[in-house]
């Protein structure tokens, strides 16, 4: 029996888009409301970098699908 990863390329692209959206919105909220974000003890810069990384990852998948549609 040949085992394969059950998620297709478009599934991963969709997952990246959803994750990037959540992370980017959260990161933006953390930066725009310092009085609230001060209560969260996380590295905001690193969080933003991860969010941007996810967003870029999604854009890369879009670019791959544009140039290799099949």
């Amino acid at each position, binding site marked *: 029996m040949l085992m394969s990863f*059950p998620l297709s390329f478009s599934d991963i692209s969709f997952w990246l888009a959803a994750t990037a959206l959540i992370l980017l919105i959260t990161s933006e909220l953390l930066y725009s409301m310092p009085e609230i974000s001060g209560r969260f003890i996380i*590295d905001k810069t690193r969080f933003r970098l991860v969010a941007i990384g996810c967003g870029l990852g999604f854009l890369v998948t879009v670019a791959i699908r544009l140039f290799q549609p099949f």
Partner: protein
Amino acid sequence: MKTKRRVDGVASNKISILFLISGILALVFSIYSISQILALIGLGLTFWGALFLLLKPLKLVEGSLLYNSAISAYLTTDRIIDEFKYKGKGHYISPYPEDVYLPEYLKGLKASVVFISKKNDNEMPSIDEIAKGKFLSKNKEGVLVTPPGSGILTQIEEKLKVDFTKMSLNELCEVLPIFIMQNLNLAKEVELKLNGDQVQLKMFDPLYKNLYSLRNNLKSVSVLGCPIASAVACTLAKTSGRTVTIQKHQASPAGSMIDVWYRIAQG
């Protein structure tokens, strides 16, 4: 007897490892069972587990600890001021830029120093005295001390990755308050206004507000400013390339609003 252990971040580490393990297991089982749902759950759990590990909580200390550790330096400065009967002001001397070449014996000119003068019209210490890192100036006309905000200044420079000597004063007045508020969380709100050779710093609910309280009655705070006001003075001196003097300060009775006025020396 049980010893006390630090528990900072232990819970978040456990959660992230739990997420990671269950995520990886879900991914492996999704391949076996060819289940898309399980794969998506596994992907999410693995990702968030890794993210929680990456975003470890920062080491935090209580704000009052910062104030309590700073007060000893101010009490020492107060003793110096009382001992020499100084009535002057704190003059923040502009340091040389880091990238400028200076011979070994003049390297001391690159450090931020503040000159506490005996009288208001005292002449400034000589370059030789600053370069040698002297404490007492000629004829005991004042003392040269390291500003209480020099540590904050170093932190700002490291995090912002900027050279303040290459920045204009207008730019500084925009960048610095935002950084003090959002990145360092040293005050709820900070405003820095430039008006000719006068600069006004307005702080709302700063961490060091207790230093300004009448209970302490610290002379050194009005001369040097609190660590935030001192860091701003150091930055102003560095950016303008001139000596900056703290003219006066005004604190609201509860200490929630503090105004500090600086004067940038001309010429």
